[in-house]
């Protein structure tokens, strides 16, 4: 697409999370806050914040990225890889990001982190699968007291044997084979490992991110109390207001998702009949928190007042807009509208995105890739 053919700037008020798109962790400073979303003909288009810091966004096919700026090789490859992704979700974009990081295109630190993260994810899935199995055992014993699990000698069974017996017992009552049930529990573990299940709830990716956002929100608020410049307090108020709504919504949606294993039989039956509804419900916190990790890292990377002033100005341009779809999840219409109206866009000093400082910013963004990958 020629530069002259770039789409005009227009208001940006996404109705759904999918329309808002998924945050893409590009390393090019100018592309901070860019999102990817499905377009026509099974392609993906990019939603790039207005480069001048003003209102509106650029909506463009991935191939037009170079008409807008000089993307890093990492970003060019990234945009090519996501061009054909058919299921745009935070999880799929994260997988692509990790793959590219593992190839080394975001630097040595991110490459090493990607390898470690892949192992950690496998571990999270194994732990979640184990928790689901043990929850199933506990519920089957408590509700049905089957002889195989409560009879003489059952106390000597090891956890894996108990799990096998529980699956054996419940499968015919679900109208499924034992293989189906075992597979379903593994698939559910895959879907639920991000939000955490049972006592490992706090170690899932979503609870960790929620905790980080809560800590950053507190830190921003405390810091802004010591500031006398109106701009700083204004950005801080806006950030805290949107963070509060997001945290409140995240808490509600995480609680709903984490409550699913409270009735394992219902969960397995729903998984058999309408697995998409489970995936959608469990995926809500990720959609809500999408884009906040980068914002938190920018704040946490700031070491003193000067860097915090700069960080807050950058964060203010990245705060995600809450789509109206969130009203279907919780009844907070007025508050959300207020927050969105309060959102202000600001202009950073040009040096941040162009001059020599661009090299430092790319290095910082690659460091963020290593942390989040």
């Amino acid at each position: 697409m020629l530069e002259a053919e770039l789409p005009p700037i227009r208001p940006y008020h996404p109705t759904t999370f999918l329309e808002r798109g998924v945050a893409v962790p590009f390393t090019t400073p100018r592309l901070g806050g860019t999102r990817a979303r499905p377009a026509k003909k099974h392609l993906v288009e990019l939603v790039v914040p207005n480069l001048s810091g003003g209102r509106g966004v650029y909506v463009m096919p991935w191939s037009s990225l170079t008409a807008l700026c000089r993307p890093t090789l990492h970003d060019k490859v990234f945009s090519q890889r996501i061009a054909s992704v058919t299921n745009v979700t935070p999880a799929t974009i994260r997988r692509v990001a990790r793959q590219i990081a593992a190839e080394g295109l975001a630097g040595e630190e991110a490459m090493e982190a990607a390898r470690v993260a892949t192992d950690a994810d496998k571990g999270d899935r194994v732990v979640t699968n184990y928790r689901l199995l043990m929850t199933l055992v506990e519920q089957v014993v408590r509700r049905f007291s089957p002889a195989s699990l409560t009879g003489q000698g059952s106390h000597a069974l090891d956890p894996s044997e108990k799990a096998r017996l529980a699956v054996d017992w419940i499968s015919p009552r679900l109208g499924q084979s034992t293989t189906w049930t075992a597979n379903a529990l593994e698939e559910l573990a895959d879907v639920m490992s991000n939000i955490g299940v049972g006592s490992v709830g706090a170690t899932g990716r979503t609870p960790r991110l929620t905790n980080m956002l809560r800590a950053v929100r507190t830190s921003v608020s405390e810091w802004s109390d010591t500031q006398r410049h109106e701009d700083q307090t204004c950005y801080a108020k806006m950030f805290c207001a949107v963070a509060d709504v997001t945290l409140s919504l995240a808490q509600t949606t995480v609680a709903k998702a984490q409550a699913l294993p409270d009735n394992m039989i219902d969960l397995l039956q729903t998984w058999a009949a309408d697995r998409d509804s489970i995936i959608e419900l469990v995926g809500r916190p990720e959609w809500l928190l999408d884009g906040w990790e980068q914002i938190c890292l920018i704040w946490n990377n700031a070491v003193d007042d000067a860097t915090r002033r700069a960080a807050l100005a950058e964060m203010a341009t990245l705060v995600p807009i809450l789509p109206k779809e969130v009203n279907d999840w919780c009844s907070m219409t007025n508050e959300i509208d207020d927050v969105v109206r309060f959102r202000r866009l600001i202009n950073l000093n040009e040096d941040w995105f162009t001059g020599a400082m661009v090299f430092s910013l790319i290095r910082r963004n690659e460091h963020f890739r290593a942390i989040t990958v």
Partner: protein
Amino acid sequence: MTQPSMKAAPPAVHALRKDLSLADDQKIKRVIAMLDDVADPKMNQTLLDPLRVRLASLNLVRPLRFTRLLFLPLDPVIVAPRDWKPEEPAVPRTALAPLARTVRAGLGAEAVFIDKTIAGRKTDAMQAITLAGEALWPRAAEVLAAASPSDDWAEAGLSIKVFQPLSRAVAAVLRRGPQLRWLLRDEEVGVFESAEQAVADILKDIGKEPPEGCALIARLILLQSPHAAPLLRRFVASGGDQAAKAMVRRAIDQGTEQMLSDMESDTALSEELSRGPLANVGAMVRRITTFLHEIEEDSGAGIDRPRLHAIRRKLDHACRERFSDGLNTGLLSPLAAGSAPVDGTGQVLMESCGRELRELESEARKIGGAANYDRLLQEASAAVKEAAAAGTLTPVRKLRLIEILSGPEAAAALYEQEIAGAPVPRLNGC
């Protein structure tokens, strides 16, 4: 550890100083770490004074001690006693220890908060410096403004007559320490939104300060935060206290003249650029070019353009030398010497070096030498490709270095040629 007495064993000290002057960077770092543990200011001064320029190039992180924190706002204008002249806006290093003791005695119990805030911290603890500095500097200014020479002033090796003008001048700076630090950090970070407020705070009641103090303040702003120079000029051009405006005008002129003279001296500019850590050199060049631009804009300064032109030529020359030297040391030599494939650590070092060189080059080409930098960068890219062909670099490591040296387009073209064709594993769920 037994501490050697400097006065008792001058030959040993001389021998140690000679050893240090010949030591490599790693040995110097180890010695500094030992001296920091000992925390004896006299020993530090005796051993380290001859190495000050070299220490700057090592970018060392040192323990954050009371005296170091106290004089942080004055750091760029602290000079060796032999280089100090009473009429110039500078502070002799030998005066620091007696002045610090005067401040500490004057603070009394208030020093406890400072000590607690900086305990165990180092000079990279930015927020601790800001916090402790905001508490210390204005109070230290009050103490110094009212102080008389202490019994140990002779230790500074300066006349008793020097004490009062020097301590009053230092007090004028410390009174504005938090605002000067604000300006400095904004310049380093690259945000200038609040410079106007900071300069207004600095110039508040400036007419009550001695001219020596005003000259130090102006020099510090021109040196560290040249983007704020127009705000000083605006103050001079505004209505109000004529005497204060005349003093600020004189201070700007004195600070400007001092900086230009330093740059014109045979070694200062090239030494600063050649010895400074590569990571800081780009920012250093940016500050100098901003300063030169600002005084060109200052019609009241009356600086001859040929004089500025000569300094720019000198700066251009120094930048080219630094770039070439940095390229050889940080990239070309490691690539040429590599008998084994470069590992992750080696790659990170080369990437850092490449980015720091690009930061320098981005600023330096504004003064001149664009074709020279382009040529050197092309040669460096060629060396990277040769190293990759010889098996020293993996394809992706080669691409990363090419991207840094020649830009993302060059790296993307290579990627298309060499890697894009390779199959990419299909991702589940995509």
